[in-house]
């Protein structure tokens, strides 16, 4: 298992070639109370950097960009009923979608946990 982070505050945890994508704790704190999440349809293909999902608080809507290229294999339907999961459990139950990696080497451009921690520290 391997977790990586983007500068846009998405995380991706990879297992057997499939990555689970969500937003970080820092991101959920910046967003405030999440009220709606639009997740992608299963089967949809993304190139790294594509807009892949939308997360909304009352006063803001933010795009989630695909951290890697690949095809969506699952979406977290539970977020429709309970968008607050993004706030209460951003790194676990609040995941957005799973994606089958087209090119695992793309992960090398992303930050590891320590690098992301430093990155966030630099913002605060």
């Amino acid at each position, binding site marked *: 298992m391997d977790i990586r982070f983007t500068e846009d505050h998405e995380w991706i945890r990879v297992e057997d070639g499939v990555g689970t994508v969500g937003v970080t704790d820092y991101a959920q704190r910046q967003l405030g109370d999440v*009220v*709606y999440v639009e997740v992608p349809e299963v089967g949809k293909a993304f190139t790294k950097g594509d807009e892949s999902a939308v997360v*909304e*608080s*009352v*006063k*803001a*809507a933010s795009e989630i960009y695909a951290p890697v290229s690949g095809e969506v294999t699952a979406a977290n339907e539970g977020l429709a009923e309970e968008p607050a999961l993004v706030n209460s459990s951003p790194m676990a139950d609040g995941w957005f979608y799973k994606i089958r990696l087209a090119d695992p080497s793309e992960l090398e451009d992303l930050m590891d946990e320590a690098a992301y921690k430093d990155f966030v520290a630099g913002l605060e």
Partner: protein
Amino acid sequence: MRYLPLSAADRAAMLERIGASAVDDLFRDVPASVLLKKPVDLPGHASEMEVERDLVGMAARNVPAGAVPFFVGAGAYRHHVPATVDHIIQRGEFLTAYTPYQPEISQGTLQYLFEFQTQVALLTGMEVANASMYDGSTAAAEAVLMARRITKRKKAVISGGLHPHYADVIGTVTRFTDDDIVRAPVDVTGSEDLVSLVDEDTSCVVVQNPSLFGHVRDLRPLADAVHQAGGLLIVVVTEVVSLGAIVPPGEMGADIVVCEGQSIGNGLNFGGPYLGLFATRQKYVRQMPGRICGQTVDADGRRGFVLTLSTREQHIRREKATSNICTNSGLCALAFTVHLALLGEAGLRRLAQINHTRAAMLVDKLAAVPGVEVVNDTFFNEFTVRLDRPAAPVIEELARRKVLAGVPVSRLIPGDERLASLMLVASTEVNREADQDVFAATLSEVLS
């Protein structure tokens, strides 16, 4: 100048506090070459009495509908509006409030918007409604754009019974998008076949009920066909009082309903301001344009209302918004809400019944005039007649004889010889039988 409270002494004191020697110091970022040195070439200020005299003079050059027998409709209708409505909307707390962005001191506006949304949903037979649009025609264009977002298809089929101005607005708004707008031929008969135009690329079908020419149609077969093909049915209602008598679009399978709401609470006003009603299914609410009011609680747990689902809107979503709309028709929506609250269900049904009966009486009176043929089998309060000659000059002549008779179809759809003799005629509760008799007799004179 009666609207400006600052005195010369105030201005001097304020400039001193600011540290400027003259007011033009404050305009120093304006390039000197474009800062005007004197007033533009227009008249100087005038007293209230003088302005009133000028405008009363202009108003006197018009023939108000209330002064003569009046039968003009085609998308705007003259109804009686209770005095209470105008009293309420002139209360400064409503008239001079802003959009309710600070909900704690805007509960008056927000609560009536919530009541308005409920009334619109009930009236149209839909699940949710927004807090109003500019008018029926712009709401219709927004509905087409919304259907495109939902279905991700480009083709919109426009009924030949849709008000031509509405069809023009839809065509204009989609002019620079890649939407494919298919306008069915003008349908005077009320029996057009739209099903054959629907295919797997069809985003929506836009149909007006009652149609421009007044026909009342059962839209259920059309709704089934559109849904089968994966598209949406958009129903346009330009005479909202008809919903007190006719099966609502929601019951007939509409996915989006847009109405011109002017008939309830709002005067003719030469075409505006009016208000667009916009209603849809719950599942499409996040694709709906315009402001929406929702219920919530305050910090003490008491019920209150806020503008909600704002992330659809331009002030947050910018170029990705569902629409560029910002302003709605708040005060017109209040007039609608007050009038409909005064009517209530029983009153609305009676009003609709009177309208229909008045029109039915007029149909018979006009049918008896030589040279007049009634086109419609069905109608609500407006119908089409075919004259034995072009309608526009006849209507002009009737106006000279102090009867405002109706709308020549040629004004809405010029250049089609087959339509030139058609006239749209509306009759509402304001028409007395004596007015109808004058109309029929004068028309008879003009045609003889």
